[in-house]
């Protein structure tokens, strides 16, 4: 009897049952880690032994050593079930054993492997090496794993552990991925190795797919908007290569999509928008396409500290060395020189600008060409920027290319540094000419220039040289403001004024003596006339007339300025007339003098006669005086 159909149906039913049944992970994962590798004898540390997907009857034997004492121990289990894409549910059992331990002696100590016995097989973790010092050890804890070197400690969120996303790059520190609630089996995760940095300093952005399902392909990736950053590609895998990562105790396959270096170009809090990706899961007809959006990020960018050298660009950040490569330092006129300014180091290679090559006018320096070579290492952008100049000597002689300085900020040392080159001396000689040795990089115009510039070009213009000799002159006032000048100008005028003053004074003094003498004589004459009046009633008429005559003569001499005693009456009359004396006064004068002559010789004894003579003399003087 032939059975038809039943056997095939049963087989399909079993296969269907198997397909829908939960899938147990096939591999047992077993490893142990410590939270630090350097401890003191007075310190404690934590040893964690992790068992993933072990059978229920598996026997775990924790490491035992006489070098350590176990202060406490705990055991925890976790089961995760994930359903995705129509595939079978994946169940994972995770058991962890935590031992709080303390070393009993100093030295290089080893924690022996833990063992796991399951299904007749024995699994062993790696041993863990510890450095134990006397007392307390300094420094932050550093984890070491035993048994799964490539995998991070899944419980690192409880401790300060290295970045699992940085691979073996100890510089990188990523924040803890957070499993989204809705898409826990497949999510997109963006992370930064640092979120607090200086302007121009590098941060590394990594974009991962975390998946617990099989991926077929990533169809499209939209990177975040990176406003405020200069970006450089560090890693962009063409094939999906997953690595095992455990997040919150749940193992994932992490696929790196992109890794970029970010160099902030401005300070402040900069936002990185979420990335997006279209991902196809499953195989062939069972696969389907999902859209995932990553988390956004924030970066705090600090401005460069104060004290920056003047005119330093914000892009000059990192660690740099600078050198000068001169093709030759002794050339013939007309032969070009290639000078390379080489800046190499770690930082934003493509955004730094090496200092411009300068030189004397005798060296014609053409516009340079710039080439960059990036050599990322451990996710850090580094490399070299070469600025190549073509220098064409214009004259024979020895010329110097001055030193170059490149100031930059070193964020690791948090201080400004300066990379510099030494001056280069170039000797240009008069040669036979010829442009056969021109470099191939020269353009035709440069070759033409080279052919035309085999002469010692002596042009006018340019800066005239400094003077070799100096006649030193101290600060001084203008000539006309110096004291001697003022004195010299005023001295002749002063002399002239002095002479005039003295002459005037002398004249005035001379005039003053003659007049005074006249006044004195007139005064004496009046006094004598007053004496004569006392004698007019006396018996001696002669004495009276003598006094009157003396008074009149003295008065006339005082008024006329010359002696009148010896003059005849006619001569006296003429003198008086010449002096402008009127006739009446002249007659009176002559009457008085005649009366006096008569009186002295006996006449004029009558008192009335005396009074008349005296009155006439007084009238002559008074009128004259007026």
């Amino acid at each position, binding site marked *: 009897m032939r059975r038809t159909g039943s056997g095939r149906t049963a087989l399909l039913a079993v296969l269907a049952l198997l397909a829908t049944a939960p899938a147990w992970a096939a591999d047992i994962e077993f490893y142990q880690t410590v939270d630090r590798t350097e401890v003191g004898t007075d310190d404690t540390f934590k040893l964690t032994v992790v068992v993933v997907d072990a059978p229920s009857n598996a026997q775990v034997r924790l490491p035992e050593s006489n070098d350590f004492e176990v202060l406490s121990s705990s055991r925890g289990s976790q089961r995760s079930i994930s359903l995705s894409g129509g595939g079978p549910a994946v169940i994972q059992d995770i058991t962890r054993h935590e031992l709080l331990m303390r070393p009993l002696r100093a030295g290089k100590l080893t924690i022996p492997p833990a063992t796991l016995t399951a299904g007749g097989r024995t699994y062993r973790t790696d041993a863990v090496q510890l450095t134990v010092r006397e007392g307390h050890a300094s420094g932050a804890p550093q984890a070491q794993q035993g048994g799964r070197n490539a995998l991070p400690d899944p419980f690192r969120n409880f401790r300060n552990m290295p970045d699992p996303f940085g691979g073996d790059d100890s510089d990188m520190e990523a924040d803890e991925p957070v499993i989204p609630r809705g898409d826990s089996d497949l999510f997109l995760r963006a992370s930064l190795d640092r979120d607090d940095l200086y302007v121009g300093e590098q941060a590394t952005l990594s974009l991962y797919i975390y998946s617990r399902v099989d991926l077929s392909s990533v169809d499209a990736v939209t990177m975040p908007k990176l406003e405020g950053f200069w970006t450089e590609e560090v890693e962009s895998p063409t094939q999906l290569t997953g690595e095992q990562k455990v997040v919150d105790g749940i193992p994932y396959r992490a696929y790196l999509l992109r890794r970029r270096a970010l160099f902030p170009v401005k300070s402040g809090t900069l936002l990185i928008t979420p990335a997006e990706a279209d991902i196809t899961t499953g195989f062939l007809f069972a696969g389907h396409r999902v859209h995932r959006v990553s988390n956004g990020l924030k970066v705090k960018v600090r401005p460069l500290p104060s004290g920056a050298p003047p005119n330093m660009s914000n892009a000059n950040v990192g660690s740099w060395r600078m050198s000068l490569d001169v093709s030759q330092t002794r050339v013939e006129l007309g032969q070009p020189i290639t000078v390379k300014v080489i800046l190499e180091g770690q930082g934003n290679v493509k955004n730094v600008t090496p200092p411009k090559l300068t030189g*004397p006018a005798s060296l014609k320096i053409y516009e340079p060409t710039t080439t960059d070579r990036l050599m990322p290492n451990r996710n850090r952008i580094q490399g070299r920027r070469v600025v190549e100049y073509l220098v064409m000597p214009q004259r024979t002689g020895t010329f*110097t290319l*001055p030193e170059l300085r490149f100031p930059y900020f070193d964020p690791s040392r948090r201080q400004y540094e300066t990379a510099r080159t030494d001056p280069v001396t170039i000797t240009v000689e008069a040669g036979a000419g010829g442009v056969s040795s021109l470099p191939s990089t020269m353009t035709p115009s440069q070759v033409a220039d080279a052919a035309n510039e085999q002469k010692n070009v002596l042009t006018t*213009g*340019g*800066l*005239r*040289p*400094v*003077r*070799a*000799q*100096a*006649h*030193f*002159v*101290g*600060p*001084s006032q*203008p*000539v*006309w403001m110096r004291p001697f*000048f003022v004195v*010299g*100008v005023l*001295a*002749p005028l002063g*002399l*002239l004024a002095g002479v005039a003053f003295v002459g005037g004074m002398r004249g005035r003094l001379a005039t003053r003596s003659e007049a005074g003498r006249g006044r004195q004589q007139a005064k004496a004459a009046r006094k004598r006339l007053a004496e004569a009046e006392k004698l007019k009633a006396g018996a001696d008429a002669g004495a009276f007339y003598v006094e009157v005559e003396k008074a009149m003569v003295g008065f006339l001499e005082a008024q006329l300025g010359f002696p009148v005693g010896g003059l005849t009456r006619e001569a006296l009359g003429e003198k008086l007339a010449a002096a402008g004396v009127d006739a009446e006064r002249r007659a009176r004068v002559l009457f008085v003098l005649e009366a006096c002559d008569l009186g002295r010789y006996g006449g004029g004894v009558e008192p009335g006669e005396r009074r008349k003579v005296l009155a006439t003399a007084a009238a002559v003087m008074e009128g004259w005086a007026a």
Partner: protein
Amino acid sequence: MSDAATQGYYTAEEAEAVFQQANDAYGREDYATAQAHYEKLIAHGFGGPDVLYNLGTTHLARGDLGRAVLALEQARKQGGRASDLEANLSLARARQVDKVVGAAADEAFLPRLAAATDGAAVAWVFFVAWLVGFALLLFRRVFPSLRRTAVAVVAGLCLTAAVPAVLLLGAHIWVHQNVHEAVVLSPTLVARELPRSEGRSLFEVHAGLKVQLLEETGKYVRIRLPNGLEGWAERDGVAEI
């Protein structure tokens, strides 16, 4: 060398040594050192047109256009024109940012007259003519019998020559007292309508431009450009020649 230079901080030999060090530094294109030495000489009374010329040339080599023009103009003011000085001044002017456009304002007669003549020479001509004229008059009076006519003629010529000389000297004194020229030192200097920081900006001038200072109020000076443009600028931005 003047008396001022022989006494004080340096001896003449030391000053000469400093000058040569400055020149050597200039030759090595160590312009900062050269500038420091030249400035030290001037600060200690060992200036003069040669040192000022070298200082200006050093500034020019360093690209400091404002101080270059200032030092070269001071050298010209002290020592008059020289071919190398004029060449470097022309080079400095060629590098200036500013181009003063428009009909030049009529410069007053006296400044032009003073610029065309040497004030010190004029002063000395007047001084000598004046003294000699009066000395001859005195001689004629003291010694009336000796060539009275000839002495009188020479004295008259001297005093006659002293008249235009003193007029020219007066022009120099007036210009010295009233006309103040300066050079813009700031890379960019804003000329405002009023001597206040919030005053409306009229125009900007740049390093190396020669301007005239008209008046000063607080930290502002009123400047006039060769074409007559005027505005108030910060005093620190200019230096008087």
